[in-house]
């Protein structure tokens, strides 16, 4: 793509931005310049400081030092509203939708036009319609409660919100983490349009292929410092990764030796709350089964129901060696089935509790004697897992809230490892995780399968499925297609199957 | 005149008795008195209903209004406040439901707004206590007053009377820290205990109602001061009578709650049956002491035979 050379005066300039949280240095004198119509990739490991840097820009975090200028004018946002009024729009990494408000109210939240304090809807409707059309979702119901939307649609909603405020600077912090490919493609078109309009776009993502596709320049952060920048065109994914983690990454998808064993989990005719119907499936020891599908296909529901979080309306789930009808999460765990939630924030982790709590919570029995816990052992266990997975945290007692997204996800994954379940249901295990960590998790998944564990991997990221799984099944509108060896699938087949439903025979 | 409501003369007269509270022996006795009247007079039915707490005026108003709407033939009311209940009583008058007021004043026209006022003179009750205290202390010493509750009219008049009578004794110093015991025994107990730490050298104490008297008694016992400090209380219950017997209390000013309930209902019925009634009827206050407590008439005031009327 034709990189527009930045003009004399950059649209956005950040210089010497510094921020500490307690003793954690999140940002250490970071400089950043983005020109008009330039799309800048901001990449780095989990915890590198990307989000914090952008929160400083959007007025959500007050920096300890440094200065910001927009179009040369000094800019010190007192709060997010000030930033928004100055033309800085931000799509945050964490979901920022108000569930109890309608879609429309969410879109105009904070910038409502009104007469005598009463909102003048007409003033907004047309622009909203335009933006939604631009996003390819004109039919999105404006009067529906946002709570009723799928995560995918929620993310679209946040993008739309950002587009509505005609911004000079637009920041996207991992905007594609729960978008389907169609939406992603459309998003890139939109970014193109913005570039033409001269908007300065900062694009944060752990999908380096995306970065290669949409961005003009890149800036790499590591431990709150800029460790490299340049035109995206003259770099490769491998180079970026090296800059990010400071070393060459070995094999992304390590090949491990494993042989499918006896069936551990089988579903026949399973249906879940209207959205998922007649799912048949057999999962064997030592195999990795991938679920592909568009956002909203119902994979999450399926996993949740199998795990006992949602009721199964029809069909039956059989776990090898268990005949009883017990199917609560507690029972499933006892039967050796574990689930990694797709929603870290609301469900996967108790953000208020410490790393240690979150890691061991599901399995305190080994530390308990007569219902009393031996905390020394607990601490040692936590520290061992932190080392194993390279979790960057101040210690076992640090509140999980203070960890970066990727490290939070690793804690959630460590919980399953600690619990040592036989069947791992992984819903988007690598969502929002940096490449190095991804590689680590893939490695773990491979090793676990090698040890005879059975794994279900739900992912929107097709290359990941192709790289990691032995077999892949595609889910379409709540129906799970037949599973076939990964080798028999191409990325194209999977996409057609996901969109059309025909498992291209 | 409720002929329109129940044409059949046979239907019993429904008399609503509304006390200030439902959870003290005092009001139990009123209830018993009302039942006694119910038994003596033929085809009369008593409905006994009160507010939850002894300081919930608004609830008593709602209660009276609801009773009016339920079409009782007469209401016998112990108003929680002399002013607050006036509109409701007038409302009853409009609805043709006669009201007999008992125990506490109502700031309205007796004879026009309501039929009759059956009560004890609270002021006099206080005076009796004050005079007795004076005698007990032989006219010299320090006397502590624990007040009952903010805005409770009858007890305030008793306290008033007590202070007035006590002022006749030049050498008696009244200590009135304006502390209120609150409406339950537990709050009274805590208030008393704290108060006693500050004023444990007083010679006499007065409390103006059942709960505060009992709470103070418990506090005195806790400090082994019971019987050492001259203590006069108001109203009676089993515990208080026992304390009187033991000499832990030197005097209880007792009214005749049973008499009030009895007379209240009787008066209401008499009025409904078109007999003329006294505008003001005093059921009297007496001082019960260790010496006179066994005289039959006093004994019946101290421990009225409630079960005979209530448990059946």
């Amino acid at each position, binding site marked *: 793509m034709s990189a527009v050379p930045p003009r004399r005066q950059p649209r956005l300039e950040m210089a010497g931005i510094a921020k500490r949280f307690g003793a954690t240095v999140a940002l250490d004198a970071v400089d950043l310049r983005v020109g008009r119509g330039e799309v800048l990739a901001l990449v780095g490991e989990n915890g590198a400081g990307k989000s914090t840097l952008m929160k400083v820009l959007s007025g959500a975090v007050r920096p300890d030092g440094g200065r910001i200028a927009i179009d040369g004018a000094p800019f010190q946002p007192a709060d997010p509203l000030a930033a928004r009024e100055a033309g800085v729009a931000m799509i945050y990494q964490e979901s920022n939708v108000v569930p109890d408000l309608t879609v429309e109210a969410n879109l105009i939240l904070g910038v409502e036009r009104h007469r005598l304090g009463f909102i003048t809807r007409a003033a907004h409707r047309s622009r909203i319609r335009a933006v939604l059309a631009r996003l390819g979702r004109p039919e999105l119901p404006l009067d529906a409660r946002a709570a009723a939307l799928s995560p995918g649609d929620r993310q679209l909603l946040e993008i739309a919100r950002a587009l509505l405020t005609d911004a000079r600077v637009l920041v996207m912090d991992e905007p594609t983490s729960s978008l389907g490919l169609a939406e992603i493609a459309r998003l890139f078109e939109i970014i193109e349009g913005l570039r033409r309009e001269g908007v300065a776009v900062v694009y944060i993502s752990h999908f380096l292929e995306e970065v290669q596709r949409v961005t003009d320049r890149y800036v790499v952060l590591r431990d709150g410092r800029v460790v490299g920048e340049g035109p995206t065109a003259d770099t490769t994914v491998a180079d970026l990764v090296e800059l990010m983690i400071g070393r060459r990454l070995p094999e992304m998808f390590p090949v491990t030796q494993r042989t499918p064993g006896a069936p551990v989990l089988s579903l026949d005719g399973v249906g879940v709350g209207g959205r998922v119907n007649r799912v048949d499936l057999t999962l064997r020891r030592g195999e990795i089964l991938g679920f592909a599908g568009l956002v909203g296909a119902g994979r999450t529901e399926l996993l949740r129901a199998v795990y006992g979080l949602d009721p199964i309306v029809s069909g039956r789930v059989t776990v090898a060696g268990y005949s009883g009808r017990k199917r609560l999460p507690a029972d499933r765990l006892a039967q050796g089935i574990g689930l990694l939630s797709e929603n870290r924030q609301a469900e996967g982790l108790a953000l208020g509790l410490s790393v240690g709590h979150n890691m061991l919570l599901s399995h305190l029995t080994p530390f308990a004697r007569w219902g009393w816990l031996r905390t020394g052992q607990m601490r040692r266990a936590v520290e061992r897992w932190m080392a194993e997975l390279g979790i960057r945290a101040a210690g076992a007692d640090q509140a999980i809230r203070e960890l970066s997204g990727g490290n939070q996800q690793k804690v959630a994954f460590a919980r399953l490892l600690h619990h040592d379940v036989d069947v791992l249901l992984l819903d988007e295990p690598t969502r929002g995780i940096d490449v190095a960590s991804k590689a680590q998790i893939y490695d773990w998944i491979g090793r676990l399968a090698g040890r005879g564990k059975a794994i279900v991997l739900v992912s929107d990221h097709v290359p990941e499925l192709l790289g990691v799984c032995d077999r892949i099944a595609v889910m379409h509108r709540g129906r799970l297609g037949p599973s076939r060896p990964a080798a028999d699938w191409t990325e194209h087949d999977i996409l057609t199957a996901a969109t059309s439903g025909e498992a291209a025979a | 005149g409720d002929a329109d409501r129940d044409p059949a003369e046979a239907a019993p007269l429904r008399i609503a008795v509304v006390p200030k509270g439902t959870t003290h022996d005092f009001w139990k006795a009123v209830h018993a008195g009302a039942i006694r009247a119910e038994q003596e007079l033929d085809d009369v039915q008593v409905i006994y209903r009160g507010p939850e707490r002894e300081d919930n005026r608004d609830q008593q108003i709602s209660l009276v209004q609801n009773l009016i709407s339920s079409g009782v033939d007469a209401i016998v009311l112990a108003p929680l406040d002399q002013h607050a209940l006036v509109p409701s009583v007038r409302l009853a008058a409009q609805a043709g439901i006669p009201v007999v007021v008992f125990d506490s004043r109502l700031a309205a026209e007796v004879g026009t707004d309501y039929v009759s006022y059956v009560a004890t003179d609270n002021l006099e009750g206080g005076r009796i206590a004050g005079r007795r205290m004076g005698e007990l202390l032989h006219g010299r010493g320090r006397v502590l007053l624990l007040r009952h509750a903010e805005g409770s009219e009858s007890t*305030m008049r008793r306290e008033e009377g007590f202070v007035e009578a006590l002022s006749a004794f030049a050498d008696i110093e009244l200590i009135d820290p304006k502390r209120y015991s609150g409406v339950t025994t537990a709050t009274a107990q805590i208030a008393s205990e704290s108060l006693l730490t500050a004023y444990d050298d007083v010679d006499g104490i007065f409390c103006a109602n059942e709960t505060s008297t009992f709470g103070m008694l418990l506090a005195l016992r806790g400090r082994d001061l019971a019987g050492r400090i001259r203590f006069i209380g108001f109203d009676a219950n089993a515990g208080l009578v026992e304390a009187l017997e033991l000499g832990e209390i030197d005097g209880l000013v007792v009214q005749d709650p049973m008499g009030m309930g009895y007379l209240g209902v009787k008066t209401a019925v008499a009025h409904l049956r078109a007999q003329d009634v006294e505008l003001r009827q005093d059921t009297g206050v007496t001082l019960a002491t260790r010496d006179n407590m066994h005289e039959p008439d006093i004994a019946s005031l101290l421990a009225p035979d409630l079960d005979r009327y209530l448990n059946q």
Partner: protein
Amino acid sequence: MSGAVRDPWGAWLRTLAPAMTLAVAVLVFYAIPPHPPLTAFDLRLVAVHAMIVGTAAIGMTVVIISGGIDLSVGSAIALVSVAAALVLEDGGGVGLALVVALGTGALCGLYNGLLITALRLPPFIATLGTLGFYRGVAKWISGSIPVTAPTQGLDAWVSPIPDPPWLLVAPGVWLMGALGIGFVLMLRYSVLGQHALAIGSNEATARLCGIRVARTKVSIFVLAGLLTGLAGLMQFARLTQGDPTVAIGLELDIIAAVVIGGGSLSGGQGSIFGTLAGAVLMAYLRNRSTVLGWPNFVEEMIVGHIIIVAVAVDRWRAGRAT
């Protein structure tokens, strides 16, 4: 999305629910021998008895929707009633009394709001503190005894039998109704209303979307304070006196009304009409148990369970809906 279609229905049901509960209650009580008739006068009384709780509960609904709660409302009502009484006692007119009442109420709300925002206190705590404070002030300025004052016709606003009779119910009740409608519109169509909802539903997001959270919260509490002021004035009119000990524990009735009406104490949900229905429901229960001549404890036991049943039914319906 299925959600889009389903949701309006759910909302609609939620709105009607309390009214239905009310209807059910009416039938149930009529079923009890001796089948006491529900006279027009009964209805008038119930309306008046629901009036004070209802008026205050309108404000409480907004507070609860915004994720807050106000335990001090009972004490504030007492304080307002005393303040108004003192004004009228000094020969002030109704107008002045109204101003003072609303002013006092608003001040109470403002103080709550400032404690919550400036000191970052949880509303439960801040208002638990002011619950004692306002009560103390009320006793202080009243000298701890009820302040009797000429009502200057204010009592007509709350007397069960309205004058003129064609009003059917007391003017105060009409006023409550009008305010109810006003606040429904406010919540649905005004910026403040939407922001209240947003804060109650997800405060972090509200902040990131540029809502001035603190300012909004304070305004909400002041608004609620105005309604408390009105309720306090009604209380005075009913008692014909400013009573520093009135409305002890009333906050629980008021909150109960909101919750029976479908409000959620975790914020983001609540319905003004539901709240009013809830207030009427409780007044109706008290009226019936008196008419039926039940002893007090029966009433307490039943009213307690009505709250439970009403909300349980609501939850159950909501549960089925999603």
